[in-house]
């Protein structure tokens, strides 16, 4: 990649920051050139974020109908899935799946709720409360 080929398509995710890419100057010598963003990266990053946002919105919808739980909404909002939530809370995946059912979290002893609260970086209050929006 030549210096002038380093993409400068200001990515909104960077919030004005840039990232360092290695590119070649006119003599072919490599050095760091800041890049403001690249179309390809922005597409796939947006795609990944949209997946979590969609899952959170669907979970919120289910929870409002009484078929889902606040825990599931929090999980997607924190960009986690069942595997990741299990790893970061120390529960097994089958336990997490069970705790995602309506009412299951509230029935847990506080010490176990605390493990979820910590993994998700939430207070105990916020953990059981359904967020207003996904």
């Amino acid at each position, binding site marked *: *990649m030549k210096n002038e080929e380093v993409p400068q398509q200001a990515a*909104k*995710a*960077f*919030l004005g*920051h*840039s*990232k*360092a*890419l*290695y*590119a*070649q100057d006119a003599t*072919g*010598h*490599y*050095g*760091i050139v*800041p890049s403001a963003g*690249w*179309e*390809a*990266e922005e*597409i*796939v*990053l947006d*795609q*990944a*974020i949209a*997946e979590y946002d969609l899952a959170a919105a669907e979970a919120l919808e289910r929870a409002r109908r009484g078929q889902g739980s606040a825990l599931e909404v929090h999980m997607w909002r*924190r*960009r*986690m*899935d069942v*595997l*990741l939530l299990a*790893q*970061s*809370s*120390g529960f097994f995946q089958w336990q997490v799946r069970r705790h995602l059912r309506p009412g299951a979290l509230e029935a847990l002893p506080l010490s176990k709720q605390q493990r979820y609260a910590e*993994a998700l*970086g939430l207070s105990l209050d916020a953990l059981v409360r359904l967020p207003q929006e996904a």
Partner: protein
Amino acid sequence: MPDIEIPFDHRQTAHCESGVMSSLLRHQGLQISEPMTFGVSAALTFAYIPFVKFGGMPLFAYRMPPKAVIKGLSKRLGIKMHYETYGRPDEGMAALDRHLEAGRVVGLQTSVYWLSYFPPDMRFHFNAHNLVVYGKRGGNYLISDPVIDVRVECDAESLKKARFVRGALAPKGLLYYPESVPAQPDYAGAIRKAIRYNTGMMLHTPLPIIGVWGIRTVARKIRGLKAAKAKHNRLFLGHLVRMQEEIGTGGAGFRFLYASFLQEAAAILGQPVLTDIAAQLTAAGDEWRRFALSAAKMCKDRMAMDTDQLADQLLECAKLEEAVYRRLRAEIKPS
């Protein structure tokens, strides 16, 4: 605790681990570039690990697993590293403060997601992000994060969370710094060993998911994607491109970074032919970038989905890279 700011030269680099190592070593008086750090640690790779899942997708790696740079570099250059991990978060934070009070800058392993200074859209659960702490002001830590263009600060609570997340690659508060650094490391010897090791892994690992063979396997997998599963295919390709290009690759899954290393190595070894090989690797990197752009556009329907084209592009990458590694092995004989 009073405010502390240890003079530290912040430079943005392409990759967090090689960036932290090169800046920690520079801080200790050893002038070493990021590409040299990356090359001597033999950190370049390709791996497709279908049984390790990230967000339900298989793992694609373009560099060796976390800590490989630190370990490979210190082994080949004879640097003695000091490592500390902690069972209790408060202990780990107190130890960090003690190091700063003693005037020592340290590297930390952290989770990107909980670092408050990261732009929100860039925050994902990756637990092996490396950064340097060089001071503390008020309750905030002064941080030189190698993938961020400016110096940043992080509040103590967030940093504690980032250092002590649980799960895959859990950092357990890992803190490290070079304990002793040789004044005149044997670069030539280290470079030769690293290139032999790295090219051997890329060419001769007897597993179809590692190295050049791994790239061909992924090409075959892409060719076999079923048109009926359009949504899955988009997610799969998007994931692949993210692993290749997202924060800290230097472009084209580290291929440009390694080409830069080969240019430096050419001068140190007195073998100008390595510059020529660097140009070949650049061509492979450019092909990776074209692949990423096509794949991303196909994910977004800006181009018609054509898995055969993508597979052919990957096979081209594999072919170009294979030629690079074979030529390197012909030029760099075991000593």
